[in-house]
């Protein structure tokens, strides 16, 4: 049962008017010829843009495939004939609103056709779009919402994998922000609780660790808007779905959180502590019951078991961190002096892994489990430190040995010099 009336239009068009696979054409194209020379930029720019990089043009599609009309004649009336009597396809003009979805879906929802161009590409974008906030609002008659062209462009469309595409991972946030950071455009929209829809998401996201990883670390797997909200089916993640959404990448954290007491209490899951768009780089300072610790927002007071647990976990993590740093500095010192420490370095890496595991385990809010991991780490760090101290002893032994050897060599040198002087004197005599 189809929910959206325009989806009926889309599917009807897709079934009845899907074009055959386009072929590069050498026939005259009066659309491009006439439109490129028109003084009205609204009419000339598309013609000019379409001659540049455009995946559709490169695959042999022409103006008529979306706009209809007859490119074989230079007669304006005949080429723009809405009745379809003058050409194989009636002129449709500029698609707007639901017509854009229908126009794109004629090909992009046609599995057989798409298979001939991009066999791996999905063909459910239009269906997904219908489930999005954008799609639902469009169906309700809101002409202000995003359609295909809003994000992908209309002419000069590039592949998603093209770094210049507005929907390439590094460009997605800016593309969404074209509307969502526009306070005037968003003025009429409200959140489910009736509060105004915020427009600072991009500013927040740009502060996040995700944005840094994506844009500065060149990590294209780092999330941008569509990774959490979906792209064609874009909606804000529901309250219960946040942990699942974050858990698609942060699986272990989500699993630990799933078993924690907080899972029952936190309405917004991960967002409660980490925020949503401005997800900052997590630090150990977030844990604890004092200072800037996030736990302190809910847990405080000496009789609060949660506060005590948070403090205990934080204390344990800080202790192991200090042990690892101290031992690392000791290894660096003796390594610099020529003692081979690669085995110890490997072991210390294991202690660092335990530190990371403890930080992960902390999401289950179970201090004894964290303590067990930390205790393993402490044992490793202590063993490495003992080995490092032995290295220091070895270094000291080597230096003493060198001192003694150099002393002996010096005595021989002085003895030789004295002997030489004696021999020389004797020779002169």
């Amino acid at each position, binding site marked *: 049962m189809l929910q959206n009336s325009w989806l009926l239009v889309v599917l009807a068009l897709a079934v009845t008017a899907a074009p055959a696979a386009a072929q590069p054409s050498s026939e005259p194209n009066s659309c491009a010829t006439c439109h490129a020379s028109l003084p009205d930029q609204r009419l000339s720019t598309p013609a000019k843009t379409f001659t540049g990089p455009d995946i559709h043009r490169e695959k042999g599609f022409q103006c008529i495939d979306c706009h209809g009309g007859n490119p074989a004649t230079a007669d304006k009336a005949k080429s723009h004939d809405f009745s379809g009597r003058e050409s194989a396809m009636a002129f449709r003009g500029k698609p707007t609103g639901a017509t854009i979805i229908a126009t794109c879906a004629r090909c992009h929802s046609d599995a057989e056709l798409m298979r001939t161009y991009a066999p791996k590409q999905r063909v459910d974008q239009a269906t997904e779009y219908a489930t999005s906030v954008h799609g639902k609002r469009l169906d309700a008659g809101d002409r202000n919402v995003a359609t295909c062209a809003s994000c992908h462009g209309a002419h000069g469309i590039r592949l998603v994998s093209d770094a210049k595409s507005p929907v390439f991972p590094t460009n997605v946030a800016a593309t969404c922000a074209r509307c969502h950071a526009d306070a005037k455009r968003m003025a009429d929209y409200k959140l489910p609780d009736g509060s105004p829809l915020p427009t600072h998401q991009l500013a927040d996201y740009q502060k996040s660790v995700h944005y840094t990883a994506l844009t500065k670390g060149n990590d294209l797997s780092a999330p941008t808007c569509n990774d959490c909200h979906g792209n064609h089916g874009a909606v804000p993640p529901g309250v219960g779905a946040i942990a699942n959404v974050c858990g698609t990448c942060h699986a272990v954290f989500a699993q630990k959180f799933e078993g924690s007491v907080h899972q029952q209490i936190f309405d917004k899951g991960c967002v409660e502590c980490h925020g949503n768009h401005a997800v900052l780089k997590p630090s150990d300072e977030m844990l604890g019951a004092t200072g800037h610790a996030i736990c302190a927002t809910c847990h405080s007071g000496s009789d609060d078991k949660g506060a005590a647990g948070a403090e205990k976990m934080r204390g344990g993590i800080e202790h192991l961190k200090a042990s690892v740093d101290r031992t690392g500095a000791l290894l660096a010192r003796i390594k610099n*002096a*020529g*003692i*081979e420490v690669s085995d110890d370095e490997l072991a210390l890496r294991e202690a660092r892994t335990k530190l990371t595991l403890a930080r992960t385990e902390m999401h289950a809010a179970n201090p004894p489990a964290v303590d067990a991991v930390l205790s393993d780490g402490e044992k490793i760090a202590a063993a490495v430190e003992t080995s490092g101290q032995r290295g220091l002893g070895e270094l000291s032994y080597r230096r003493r040995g060198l001192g003694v050897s150099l002393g002996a060599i010096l005595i021989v*040198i002085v003895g*030789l010099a004295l002997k*030489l002087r004696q021999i*020389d004197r004797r020779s002169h005599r």
Partner: protein
Amino acid sequence: MLQTAMNWLDERLDLTDIKAFVKEKGVPLHTQEVWYYLGGLTLFLFAVQIFTGILLLLYYRPSAAEAYESVQFIVTKVPFGWLIRNIHSWSANLLIAVAFAHFFSVFLLKSYRKPRELTWVSGMLLLFLMLGFGFSGYLLPWNELSFFATKVGTGIAGAVPVVGHFMLRLLRGGDDVTGATLSRFYGLHVAVLPAIATALVGLHLLFVQRQGMSVPMKIERRVNAGEPLREMPFFPNYILRDVLAWYVALALLAALALFYPWELGTKADPFAAVPPGIRPEWYFLAMFHTLKLLPSHIWIFEGERVGVIAFGLAAAFLVFVPFLDRKASRGERSPVFTIAAVAGLVYLVVFTIIGHVAK
């Protein structure tokens, strides 16, 4: 005690000639005599290399799978293994530095002139052998730096005209640097080169003993004019001074081994990307940097090939210097060869420094 032993030997071997030679042998005394000690110092460092090299041989395993681990074992587990390995590495570098100093001092003093042409030729061949020792020994720890530096170095050998490809395959034991290259370099380093070097060192010393020390041309002219040549007895005056210099070198080696230990680096991974800053040992830096600076083509010839030919010609020129410098052979001044030696020295120093600081 020593005398008793000498008498015992004399009774059986008749050491009269040798004793007379040692007693009579003198070393000229003049303002440039300090350069004489460089030869003895090179010999001492060569002996250190043989001694420490034999000790390293006891534990080293020449295969791509075990070489790195065996060196790691030597420096961590074998008692004083760290000291032996560090002294071997440092002594190799000091040996080449002192050999170069010896070469330039002999060149500038024109000690190669008649009748010491063959002493010079054997010395030049020894210098090339020392560079060969350095090149082959550098790969043996099988670490990342040595692996890629050997790749570059053997690649340069491939640029030699006509026989380049054959030489490259001969050195590498295939088209690429692999465990086969390591086996070959090991064989070269511990058998082929030492055998040739020992023979050449023996020959070089024989020539020096037969002909005595060369004196600078200025002093030779005075001696020829009738001025007496001051001398010091070889034994014990000179030999004790030599030993003194060896002890100083030994102290320096021990201190360098402790305070500037030779890093082992990370194990070579043939599939890893070439790490930045790959460069050969310092004594090949000047040549390496020169080849880097050459354009890809000089006229119609490949730039690198032209560079390799030029270095080959320079090496041949150096070997045949005594036969080319006719003036020096006649006891006349030969400023062209002095300028060539100074230019060579300046070139090596400047390009080594530039090669070291260049990224």
